[in-house]
């Protein structure tokens, strides 16, 4: 009798999760079979994780990061679920399935949760899914290519910039105004300006505008 690997897939698009379910359940694995539970949305995901913690924890939890529409009040993300899972079911492996491919996000999530895998959605297909399951069960981590690129950038980074700097750079790159950054970065506006200046100096774009800073930061893999 083959083992049944229990997988939970959390995504705000039901079709996406169903897709994962069908693909994985139809795939042939050597030593086991796969069963996928689908949770649509954050709350359901939370429920399932909590339930699993009381019963049988999942082997793998696949988490989409964006679980609410961008304009929604609730800004809880897959990251939060990941942290929850770590708390409640530390034996479960967590894999993020995200559309975010920028190095900043990837790195920040990985630092926060330390998942067993990270897949960039555009790179998800049948093969990669199967590969991911195999690797995560036996020898994590599993990163899709873009995630690896981000990780590589992080490894090769000689500059040490702290999380506030990273956050500032990220917000800049998505066009957030300095006055709106305070929500995401808990420092004063003056600090933000100072750090921007310092970063420009660090990256060698001292007298250039913010665009150049973003470009350089992107090149170096911070964002």
């Amino acid at each position: 009798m083959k083992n049944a690997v229990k997988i939970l897939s959390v995504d705000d698009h039901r079709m996406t999760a169903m897709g994962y379910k069908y693909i994985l359940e139809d795939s042939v694995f050597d030593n086991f079979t796969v069963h996928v539970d689908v949770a649509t949305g954050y709350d359901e995901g939370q429920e399932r994780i909590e339930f699993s913690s009381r019963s049988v924890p999942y082997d793998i939890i696949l988490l989409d990061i964006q679980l609410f529409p961008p304009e929604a009040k609730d800004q809880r993300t897959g990251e939060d679920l990941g942290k929850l899972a770590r708390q409640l079911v530390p034996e479960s492996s967590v894999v993020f399935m995200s559309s975010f491919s920028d190095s900043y996000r990837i790195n920040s999530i990985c630092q926060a949760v330390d998942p067993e895998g990270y897949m960039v959605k555009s790179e998800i297909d049948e093969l990669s899914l199967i590969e991911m399951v195999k690797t995560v069960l036996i020898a994590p981590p599993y990163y899709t290519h873009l995630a690896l690129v981000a990780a590589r950038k992080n490894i090769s980074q000689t500059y040490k910039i702290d999380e506030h700097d990273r956050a500032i750079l990220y917000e800049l790159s998505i066009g957030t105004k300095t006055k709106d950054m305070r929500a995401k970065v808990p420092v004063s506006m003056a600090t933000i300006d100072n750090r921007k200046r310092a970063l420009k100096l660090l990256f060698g774009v001292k007298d250039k505008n913010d665009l150049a800073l973003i470009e350089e930061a992107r090149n170096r893999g911070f964002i």
Partner: protein
Amino acid sequence: MWVKTKFSVTSSFLIAILFLSCGKESTPTPPQKAVFTDSISYWLSSKKGSDKAVYIKNLQKALSAVEIEPNDSLKARYASQLSLKYLNLNDSLAFRKANKMALLWAKKIKDSEKMAEAHWDAAYFFEKRNVIDSSYYCYAKAHELYKSLGNDYNSARMLYGMSAVLSTIKDYTTAETYAIQAVEIFNSLEHEKKFNRLKSCYNQLGIIANNLKDYNKALEYHKKALEYLEIMDGDEIDLARSNNNIGAVYLAQGNYGLALEKFLTTLKTDSLYQKNTGLYAKALSNCGYSQFKTGDTTNIRYKFNRAIAITDSIGDLESLSRSYYTMSEFLLFKKDTLGARSYAEKAKKTAQQSGNSLRTLETLELLTKIDSDNGPTYFSEYVQLNDSLQIAERRSRNKFERIRFETNETIAENVLLSKQNQIWAAIAGVLLLLGIAAYVIIDQRRKNEKLRFEEEQQKTNKQIFDLLLSEKSKIEEGKKSAQKRISEELHDAVQSRLQGIRMLLLGLNKRNTPEAIEERSEAIKELKRVQEEVRAISHELSHAAYQRIYSFISTVQELLNLAKKNTQLQSNFIFDETFDWDDLDSDIKINVYRIIQESVQNCIKYAEAELLVLTFDVNGENILHVTIEDNGKGFRVKGRKKGIGMRNINSRVKKLNGKWKIQSEIGIGTTVILYIPILKTQNTSETIQMKIA
């Protein structure tokens, strides 16, 4: 006494000419005036000595001619000459007339010297007639004038005159002061007649000292006078006079022996009787008296009689009275009471006649001695006279005090006037400075105001510029956020869903169960929905792309919206949508915005309008027409003084090289039209592009 010699040369020359012309009857008559003037000087030049009657007649002619002489300075000159001549003639009436005229015309032509001369003549005139107060007054006035003219010699002579006059009224102390002043001045001067004057002064001082009973001083003064006499080699008459005066001092001292000596010396003077009869008589009388007092009564009666006879003949009442007195005294001594009394009465009478009250008192005293029966009567008369004398003396002293005071006052007044003039000049200077200061201040203030006005304009310009910029950035931000939203929408609505569909289809690829088929059809429906989403987003994008939001227009619209929100003013904004409003010069944008802002405020504040129509239109000749029309109260355009609002609009339109006009009808509304030339400057946009590249 002095004689004018100024015009004698000219007048003799004229006489020569006239003599020639007077004889011939047929000579052509020269202009009437010239003849007139020449005649006067001719008449005035005639000498006294030759024919007195002719002389007097000439003077009369001259006098009447001068009265009608039109030329003021000539009038003054001739009147002055006449005054002197009549003075010498002793014709009181004519003198007074001439003197009055002389003074009047001298005053008119402001000739201080002639005025002084006229006063001098009058002073001498009054002195001779014993009108002491008038004499003193005239001397004082002459003195003042000479002093102001800087003529020290004559001013000193006036002082001498005043001294002489004052001693006549027995104000010896003041007389002495004046005489001393005169001496001081004469001493300091160099004049040919210096010593003469000094002699006279010392003589006078001697007389004064004698009367003040300071006999030693008196002798001193008289000796000094004698000294000067010797220096100037004076004539014998003067010497005689001095001797007589010295003798008088000795007499008063009681030094009868020395007195007699002096008087005898005086009498010995050569032709004294002929040259100065009065002096001779005086000396004779004095001689007799001193001789009498020494106890030598030889020929006394003869001497006294002789003295009396001479004095009577020359009409010197005062001396006569004295002579009578001495005779009476002598007779009393000789125990001739009747004779004594008779002479004493004569003495009293003449004393009264001569107005010599002191002498009268003396005679009364003598009478009481002579006629002891009538003693009390005489005594009471004496007392009465003495009292009235005292009163009169005090009154005259007051009068003279007053004259002195008035003279001083005039001097003080002059000083005050000059001081006042200084003050006026200073005030004028200060006012001028104040005037200049005021002008400078006003000018500066005006400049300041102008600068401030411009500063205000600049400030508002900057505000509007910032407003336009912020509007632009607001619009850009709006665009950006729209783009962001679209991007998010794309990502979320489209991308994720497509992802889902893909995953599902991938998963269902190998399955063929009815559930699978069901799911697949669901996926297909989802695809359709995604397509619609894409179309919608695409429309949004294209709409956003096509929508040209001009930040300038948007700013103006904001302004109107704000008004709409806060007041009852509705507005319509009509503008050409094909025109690139943002391409306008920022100067135009700023100033036009400001003008619109101002007009909107006016609409709300003054016009109380309900509807405002704003039109932007560009015609072919590159003129921007901005029309601001309201349906408010309207106002009178003509009569009004341009308020700050209108001035602002005016200056801004001018800055843009534009024109504007304002029309209004009461009850209907107001329209403001701006005509602004716009030059499309391609260069600026090119330079910007180059900079970006």
